[in-house]
């Protein structure tokens, strides 16, 4: 295999100005990425997963030369993102701002022609490229209307077409199925899978885990600017299955949860609160052996357990396990769970 994207110890930090008063500000340094290293192979469908603010978009912008890294290095299609930015950009088809990156007063065709021209396509080559990509995305009948008259899904399609029009070897898509309805999202997923089968490399970010599970050869889970796991979706989910997850439904006291966290067989504990009640998920190397002590500890410290289950872990499970703050307080966890739910 041949690595088409190579990222080594990439870091990005910048100053954020925070308002402290009417005229006063304070600068705070934000570490958006820290020590990120990974490779994407040619023809691979690679996903970046993470919650909002995890650093996915910053990473994509570093790779598309829209942000310069603070340290580390990255090569795209053999070119350095710092020293050979123009060659890097020529190797990429980008969709980073979704439907926002289009000229709404222009027609879909004019938008595509403009971006094709900026990639050096002219005349008959440009016309053929636009015809090919619009046929592929089913855009032909809308192509001569102003983009401002399009539906959200149609605009997203034009944005995707814009990324495809110059036939770059690497596609970089930031949450491409956002704002698409179920059918349009499925169509786009099928198209991306097809493009990947044809030999294009796809790097995309998402927080839709089922999408990544379905499409990606490998995924990197990004959390607080770091890659916390990188593997195939099946293996990431499989790791969690080997680990074993005990799910308890009931009412849980903070002391009870703390006691469970300190049990020797317990690796991770997460509390989720939703309309259907509170669920305590416990990952353990030996879930059968851990179940008894866990329940005993909870009940002894004022918790009630209504239901017990051992669930088959999936990518979502792995994602949640890997991105939850290990030492956050009970309340923070409960709040985070509420927000997520």
């Amino acid at each position: 295999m041949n690595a088409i994207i190579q990222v080594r110890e990439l870091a990005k930090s910048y100053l954020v100005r925070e308002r402290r008063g009417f005229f006063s500000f304070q600068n705070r340094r934000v570490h958006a990425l820290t020590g990120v290293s990974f490779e994407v192979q040619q023809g691979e469908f690679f996903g970046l997963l993470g919650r909002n603010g995890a650093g996915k978009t910053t990473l994509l912008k570093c790779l598309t030369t829209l942000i310069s890294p603070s340290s580390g290095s990255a090569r795209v299609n053999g070119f350095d993102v710092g020293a050979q930015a123009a060659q890097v950009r020529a190797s990429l088809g980008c969709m980073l701002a979704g439907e926002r990156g289009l000229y709404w007063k222009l027609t879909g065709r004019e938008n595509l022609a403009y971006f094709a021209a900026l990639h050096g396509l002219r005349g008959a080559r440009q016309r053929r490229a636009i015809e090919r990509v619009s046929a592929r995305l089913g855009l032909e009948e809308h192509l001569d209307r102003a983009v401002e008259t399009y539906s959200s899904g149609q605009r997203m399609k034009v944005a995707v077409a814009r990324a495809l029009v110059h036939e770059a070897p690497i596609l970089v898509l930031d949450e491409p199925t956002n704002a698409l309805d179920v059918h349009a999202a499925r169509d786009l997923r099928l198209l991306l899978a097809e493009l990947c089968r044809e030999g294009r490399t796809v790097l995309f970010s998402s927080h839709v885990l089922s999408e990544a599970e379905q499409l990606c050869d490998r995924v990197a889970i990004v959390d607080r600017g770091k890659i916390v796991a990188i593997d195939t979706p099946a293996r990431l989910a499989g790791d969690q299955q080997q680990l074993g997850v005990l799910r308890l439904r009931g009412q849980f006291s903070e002391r009870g949860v703390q006691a469970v966290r300190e049990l020797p067989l317990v690796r991770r504990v997460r509390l989720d609160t939703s309309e259907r009640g509170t669920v305590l998920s416990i990952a353990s190397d030996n879930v059968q052996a851990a179940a008894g002590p866990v329940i005993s500890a909870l009940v002894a410290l004022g918790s009630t357990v209504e239901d017990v289950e051992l669930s088959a872990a999936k990518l979502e499970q792995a994602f949640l396990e890997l991105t939850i703050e290990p030492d956050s307080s009970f309340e923070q966890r409960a709040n985070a769970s509420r927000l997520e739910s």
Partner: protein
Amino acid sequence: MSAPSAARAVLAVASNHLRMMSRTPFYLLMDLALPLLIAAVPMLLGRSFAGPGASSAFSANTGTNNPFLFMLLGSTQFVLVGGALFNVGSWVRRELQAGTLESVFATPNQRVTIVLGVCVYGLLKDLAILVVSLSVACLVLGARSFDLRVVAAIGWMVLGAIPTYAMAVAYAALVLQLREVSALTQLLQGATGLLMGVFFPVEILPKPLQVLAWCFPPTWSIHGMRSLLLGMSWRLGALERDLSVMLALAVIFPVLALLLFRRAEEKLLAAGGFGGL
């Protein structure tokens, strides 16, 4: 990137902007009509204050007995300078907000070529404005005959537009960092209108402002056009000397503007990119 590729990118950007302008034709109509409308105001004001003797008083102060053309050249240059700031500075802001700046800057072109494309579009529009203004003034209103000097004045304006657009590129660099444009554009437009002597000779400004005014390319541009079309004296006594200054400005200002833009680009790349609002 090779020079032909860069030139093609510049043309692609300029033609894209012309295409977008065609979708908002009233903006073009406004730009074409504004110089004449703006020039009419001080003309009528002068008449209402000074009566029939207005022209002779004006002639004594300016060295020309053609106040209408004096005003029109001033108002045209005012519209052109405002347009340059608006076309380039506001363009950056608009596209930053629309998300298109990031899309365009993700193409394999030097980012400054994209900005140059916008400047070329602005220049073409300016040329149209000036040609229409002078044609109406000469052929319809009879302000003077439409001869070779008018063509020379248009050429002078194009030369003056180079440092003016360089200033606009520097302004765009500022907008990219400040992310604030409307009030700043109007403030700059007002200040430049005052400094370049839109409706009056620069010589009536206080001395410190005069020094500032002659550091400012549009002042040379407007004065040169007035010298060509109204027979007013050249600033440095001869066409060749004023032309040398214009040529120097047309070299120095773009170099400074490109350096400023590059610096702003580097700062933005380090700070967080082109995608925010």
